[in-house]
């Protein structure tokens, strides 16, 4: 405890508390109930990014958090400011991203009276936050902010909302600062796998003939990539990744199978279905990964390494649960497992590749047309796979996952669990503050881009460099694809007319380029990379292309819709 200092207002204490948590940048939008905080902001060293819509603030904080591994901070006023955060908070909740969202609230005396811009935001966000607080007393602000950061970042991370009444921001007190560890009597974020369970798991791994590792977001969150590489080197097990796990294990590693699930390669899903052991690391058996549960990996024993006990046996019954941080668990498992080379099994997987084959769109001649998959492949090639890519939600997201090979963690930022359209542009701006030097590509669709396109002007105001690739097919493409496959091609509300995106960029003082054929891709990408400011490229791609392969929702994982001929299927994917 420091010695008592002079009196400070709640608003001043708020910024000092954030500074003490190491916050360098916050994303927000002012308004009546948060004005005291915004006044005190002027005297704080913390940088504030003025967004155009509070949803953008939450996504920016989210992008910042995913890339930095730190807690992202968004700030908004009461009522509509707070409710506009909701989609961003839910996005962070489903993908376990640590956020602290600070909202102003009407004065404590007016609470519950339906005052101007009053919304019960702690009530609204109860199911989509890890925890939330309503602070009505100035003396509680410092302590609550400290708790909020601790809860958001410890255990399975998640968003925490702190709603602070206007009078608490205005009142003054002598702040009490504590560096002691936060103790919450009912909160237990740490679990350690039991040694008996670890031994059982090691025996199963040694005994397995056809094992597959399922690597999820937890690998990235735990910074366990180097350990996973060592673990794979020793055990010889091939690795399939979830969407959010991409980059957690190098895509170009010989034992990397790539993405599994609804839009995973057919042979990857077949390998999972034929496996006799699945080792799930920091993933939660989402329905997009398992397909129909009754037929998911029917012959496989399952080991589940997971931080959150509530995930065990939720979707898939497992044989061994190793509850704990995946890094600690791998550390503990490492000496218990034997060195193995799995020649037969890897041979079988190669066979599956040959049988069910990668339908490699790179083999397909463009014939004057522009395929989104070609754009992804070219972007990967030109950026040498080193860009930080932020994707939106839909077809382009899946094509990116298939064709942009991520070899490093925290290089792909995407909304997996909630599937939030409009995520990419603001999340990329947040990511920019976490990675000032990295080459960043926003890959988005014409639909999702327009949901948060207003943040272009935030990007212009902040004068930051992003590269924006709009995969423009004139449709809400993924929904159109479902309509094509499952609704007799009845295109209900999916044809989409967009503004001239090049002019839109120019209206913001940014460079806009248009690409309509494959030979224009490389020069446009090169020009974007060579330009100091943000460049937007409007890629006019095939309008009715579909993402293949596809496991229809609710179908068995091996029951995939294949890419139709005459597309060449080859045995190798490179």
């Amino acid at each position, binding site marked *: 405890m420091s010695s008592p200092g002079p009196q400070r207002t709640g608003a001043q204490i708020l910024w000092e508390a954030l500074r003490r948590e190491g916050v360098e940048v916050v994303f927000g939008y002012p308004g009546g109930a948060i004005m005291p905080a915004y006044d005190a902001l002027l005297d704080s060293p913390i940088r504030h990014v003025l967004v155009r819509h509070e949803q953008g603030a939450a996504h920016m904080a989210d992008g910042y958090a995913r890339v930095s591994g730190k807690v992202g901070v968004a700030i908004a006023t009461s009522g509509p400011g707070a409710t506009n955060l909701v989609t961003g908070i839910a996005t962070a909740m489903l993908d376990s991203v640590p956020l602290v969202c600070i909202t102003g609230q009407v004065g404590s005396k007016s609470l519950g009276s339906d005052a101007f811009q009053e919304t019960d935001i*702690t009530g609204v966000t109860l199911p989509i936050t890890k925890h939330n607080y309503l602070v009505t007393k100035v003396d509680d602000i410092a302590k609550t902010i400290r708790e909020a950061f601790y809860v958001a970042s410890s255990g399975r991370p998640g968003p925490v909302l702190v709603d602070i009444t206007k009078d608490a921001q205005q009142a003054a007190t002598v702040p009490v600062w504590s560096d002691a560890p936060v103790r919450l*009597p009912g909160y237990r974020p740490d679990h350690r796998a039991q040694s008996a369970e670890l031994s059982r798991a090691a025996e199963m791994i040694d005994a397995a003939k056809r094992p597959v590792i399922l690597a999820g977001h937890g690998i990235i969150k735990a910074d366990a990539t180097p350990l996973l590489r060592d673990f794979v080197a020793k055990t010889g097990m091939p690795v399939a990744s979830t969407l959010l796990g991409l980059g957690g294990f190098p895509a170009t590693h010989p034992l990397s199978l790539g993405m599994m699930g609804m839009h995973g390669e057919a042979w990857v899903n077949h390998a999972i279905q034929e496996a006799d052991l699945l080792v799930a690391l920091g993933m939660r058996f989402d329905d997009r990964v398992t397909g129909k549960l009754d037929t998911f990996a029917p012959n496989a024993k399952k080991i589940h390494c997971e931080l959150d006990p509530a995930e065990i046996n939720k979707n898939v019954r497992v044989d061994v649960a190793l509850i704990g941080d995946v890094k600690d668990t791998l550390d503990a498992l490492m000496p218990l497992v034997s060195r193995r080379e799995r020649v037969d099994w890897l041979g079988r997987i190669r066979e599956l590749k040959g049988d069910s084959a990668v339908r490699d769109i790179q083999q397909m001649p463009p014939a004057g047309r522009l395929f989104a998959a070609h754009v992804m492949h070219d972007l990967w090639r030109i950026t040498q796979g080193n860009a930080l890519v932020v994707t939106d939600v839909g077809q382009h997201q899946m094509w990116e996952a298939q064709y942009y090979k991520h070899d490093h963690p925290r290089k792909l930022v995407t909304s997996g669990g909630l599937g939030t359209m409009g995520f990419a542009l603001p999340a990329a701006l947040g990511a920019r503050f976490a990675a000032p030097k990295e080459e960043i590509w926003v890959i988005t669709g014409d639909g999702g881009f327009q949901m948060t396109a207003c943040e272009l002007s935030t990007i212009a105001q902040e004068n930051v460099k992003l590269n924006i690739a709009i995969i423009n097919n004139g449709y809400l493409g993924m929904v159109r694809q479902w309509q094509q496959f499952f609704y007799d091609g009845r295109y209900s509300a999916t044809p989409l007319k967009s503004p001239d995106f090049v002019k839109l960029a120019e209206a913001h003082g940014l460079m806009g380029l248009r690409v309509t054929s494959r030979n224009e891709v490389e020069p446009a990408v090169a020009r974007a990379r060579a330009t100091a400011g943000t460049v937007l490229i409007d890629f006019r791609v095939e309008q009715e292309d579909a993402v293949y392969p596809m496991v229809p929702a609710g179908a068995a994982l091996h029951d995939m819709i294949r890419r139709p001929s005459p597309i060449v299927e080859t045995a190798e994917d490179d």
Partner: protein
Amino acid sequence: MSDIRLRTFIMHVEDLPGVLNRVTSLFRRRGYNIESLAVGRTDVPGVSRMTIVMEADDDAARRIEANLYKLVNVLRVEDTTRRPTVLRELALMKVRADHSTRAHILQLAEVFRARAIDVGPEALIFELTGTRDKIDGLADVLAPYGLIEVVRTGAVAMLRSAEVAEATPKTLEEPQITAA
């Protein structure tokens, strides 16, 4: 799948505004239907105790427990279903009774050890403590006479003999944390 049956959870939570809402919101969100929920203070300042009865199979029960633990204000949770437990519920029942039926109704109530706590010219109110079955039983017996109103508290639970629910914290500060 494992057996679906009525489960009893004893929970200790921080006595703060909104905590009951957090607990019930969790049950609602995960789609679990609560049979009964009773909550009150304990002898430990700042700690409330809840008894929740609900239908669930073994897997669901474990997940409910794990999900409840994820609530920051929840101190301890225990599924006491498989342990020797005393479960009691309090009910008040108002039944139509005039001079011709009153004596008979009082006699019936006596069998259930229900206490008449209000006697009026047209109705009686009984107070009854017991298990769910016993209360259902009295309600069934009184129904033909005209049950005007029934109110039940929901079950409260306690482990038998000298056993103490592991869920019982000694103080708010030292909640005896053990692995979940």
